């Protein structure tokens, strides 16, 4: 079941349309990737989900009913631009922000102590925020985002500004949160983390949704019959062996192995390629090349932009 769904959401600022008829569904206990180039409308959509602004058209439903102001207590939001009151104490500030999310002071203190212990940052409690490094502030902010145990979390570029060790720590925490029942909207430009973490995605470009669905299915759908092979025993051009319609996309040589990427005509089985090649060379490895999210992102966005240039 969907914890959150947006239906035909449109938002305009004067003459500028920031979101145009965008729909999406975030399933319970899933990680949902919200992707798109800069200025596509992601932040506007996040702000609508957070009820910072309202949609001009369309609706947002939380667990099947319209979102209402009290629902902010069930949502945790880590904005891309992190920020805390610099002159305020870390602990004091964390309690304040937790209280704004509806926790009692007592409960906030109890949970925060637990999180500070978990992250081993107890001795920051009485420090002022400005005394902490940027990475430390991010940790505090992460805790503040999750301390009220929201059922829907929105992370906007959560890994930026963290060192690899802390990126791992954070990724584990995010996976742990999902395991414990939270649903997560994850906005990022880092496509490898999308492949690693996300179940579903939506790709927004220039205010319009241009792609959505399950990550694996999307990649599968974008598979264009391309294979990578490593081989030895044949030093001439691979292309001369191939029947027409077969295309060598890329070839290179490292150590003793040749390396080639070959695209087959639509509807052609991979066995036909192997059948042609096997008499001439020794194959070390043979895999299908499933496009990365990065490639899909770039090709999709470029295609749409090229179309819009043609149209205009």
């Amino acid at each position, binding site marked *: 079941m969907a914890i959150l769904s947006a239906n035909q959401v449109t938002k305009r600022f004067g003459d500028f349309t920031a979101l145009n008829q965008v729909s999406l569904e975030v399933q319970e206990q899933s990680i949902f990737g919200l992707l798109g180039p800069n200025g596509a409308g992601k932040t506007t959509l996040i702000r609508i989900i957070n009820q910072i602004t*309202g949609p001009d058209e369309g609706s947002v439903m939380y667990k099947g009913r319209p979102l*209402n102001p*009290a629902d902010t207590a069930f949502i945790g939001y880590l*904005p891309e631009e992190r*920020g805390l009151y610099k002159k305020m104490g870390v602990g004091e500030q964390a309690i*304040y922000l937790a209280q*704004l999310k509806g926790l009692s002071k007592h409960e906030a203190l109890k949970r925060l102590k637990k999180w500070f212990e978990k992250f081993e940052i107890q001795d920051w409690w009485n420090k002022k925020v400005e005394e902490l490094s940027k990475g430390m502030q991010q940790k505090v902010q992460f805790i503040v985002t999750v301390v009220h145990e929201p059922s829907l979390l929105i992370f906007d570029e959560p890994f930026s500004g963290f060192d690899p060790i802390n990126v791992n720590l954070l990724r584990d925490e995010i996976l742990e949160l999902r395991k414990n029942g939270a649903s997560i909207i994850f906005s990022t430009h880092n496509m490898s983390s999308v492949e690693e973490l996300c179940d579903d995605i939506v790709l927004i470009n220039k205010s319009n949704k241009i792609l959505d669905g399950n990550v694996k299915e999307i990649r599968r759908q974008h598979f264009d019959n391309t294979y990578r092979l490593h081989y030895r025993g044949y030093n001439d051009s691979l292309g001369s062996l191939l029947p027409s319609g077969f295309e060598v996309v890329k070839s290179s040589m490292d150590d003793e192995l040749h390396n080639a990427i070959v695209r087959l005509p639509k509807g052609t089985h991979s066995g036909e390629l192997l059948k042609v090649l096997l008499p001439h060379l020794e194959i070390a490895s043979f895999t299908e090349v499933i496009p990365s999210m990065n490639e899909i992102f770039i090709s999709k966005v470029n295609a749409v932009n090229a179309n819009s240039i043609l149209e205009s």
Partner: protein
Amino acid sequence: MQLTPIPFSNPDPSAMNKIFLIIKREYLTRVKKRSFIVMTILGPILMAALFIMPVYLATKQVENRQIQVIDETGWFAPKFENNENYTFIPVALDLEAAKENLRKSSGDALLYIPKTQLSVPDKAIIYSDNPPTLNLTGYISNVMNREIEKHKLAAEIRKEILQVSPEAEASSDSSKEDLMSETILKNIKTDVELTSIKLNEGGTEQKSYTEAYMIAGLVFSIMIYMFIFIFGAQVMRGVIEEKTNRIVEVIVSSVKPFQLMMGKIVGVAMVGLTQFLLWIIFTSVLIFGIQQAFPDQFGRSEPTALIKTNDMQQGATEIAAPQAEQKTNVVLEAIDSINFPVLLSAFIFFFVGGYLLYGALFAAIGSAVDNETDTQQFMLPITIPLIFSMIVAQSIVNDPNGPLAMWLSMIPLTSPVIMMVRIPFGVPYWQIGLSMVLLILGFLFTTWVASRIYRTGILMYGKKVNYKELWKWMRYRG
């Protein structure tokens, strides 16, 4: 422009609780700041100095002043002694002629002691261009008191001797004195009523009451002016801080921008009220302390010295002469004539109302810019009505019920300052009421406008904002 209702009501039941949390944070973080504590201590010292300096200067005399005296009673004129500060010159003119003559004959003030028919002459009027110094009024009433008391004492003693003469020979001198001092002292105690009248250019006169009203009005309006500027700017800086810190996005994902804005405005208002309250308490304590330490200069009405009047025929008798009593008589009288319940309740209302009206605008400005240096262009429309009110305040005191005063005390942007200038002079209740209603409406309107600009502005970065842009933001839907 779509008129959506002001979001005062909110379906979120915890909304009030959240506003309270915001107010608490805004209040506590500011009150704990070092700058707040320093200002709380420095303020009263400055204010006490402001109170003490004029009194101190008034007791100092720079040059010799010529006081012309018309004494119709003939009791007092010879008793005024010249010193390095004052020269008393009796003039043999009637009052009107003497007033005409005053400037021509290089006199600084004219003391007029009118003859009375039935009672002892205990009234005197000082005409002057500038208000007489406390030293002078103190000295004149002192001399007059002493003279009157002397006359009264002589009369009492004559009466006494007539009444008690059979026993008088039997009793000793000392017991007679005892008897006298008790009953007679009460009878002869005199308070001269010394009125100060300002002579202005036209030669017409007005009572110095006006000055007290003026001072009262200006002090209150300056306080409102300062409060709006100091604490309005704090609201603005607070908004800019949240915006540049980027915490605002986290906060508005928990509360409505309107709640955050109002919480901040109210929180800062409480800081301001706390500061003013502490200032009033500390200043009073400080001034009271100084009055206790230097009763001669700054005393109000404590009977201070007992003056020996050796020149009395009936031997030495001690007479209490309240030396400083008359010093501040005129001012006190004027202050008494001000309607204080109205003045103070109006002050609190216009103080808070004016701040709230402007506070919302300051918040809107803070939201529209990325840093404090960019605020200049938007500050102008806010500062102009305020500074304008302070400038015209000086002409308002000359015509506190004129059309300019009337209109400016109705317009919400100027009414907090201008109405406070007018109120000590007496303003019809319907005008005060109307002005208050208009101020409330003005506050609701500016808050509505400001909240619309605010909720867009706080999330807008790196944009050079102009008035056209603000107008666009106002028309965005929430």
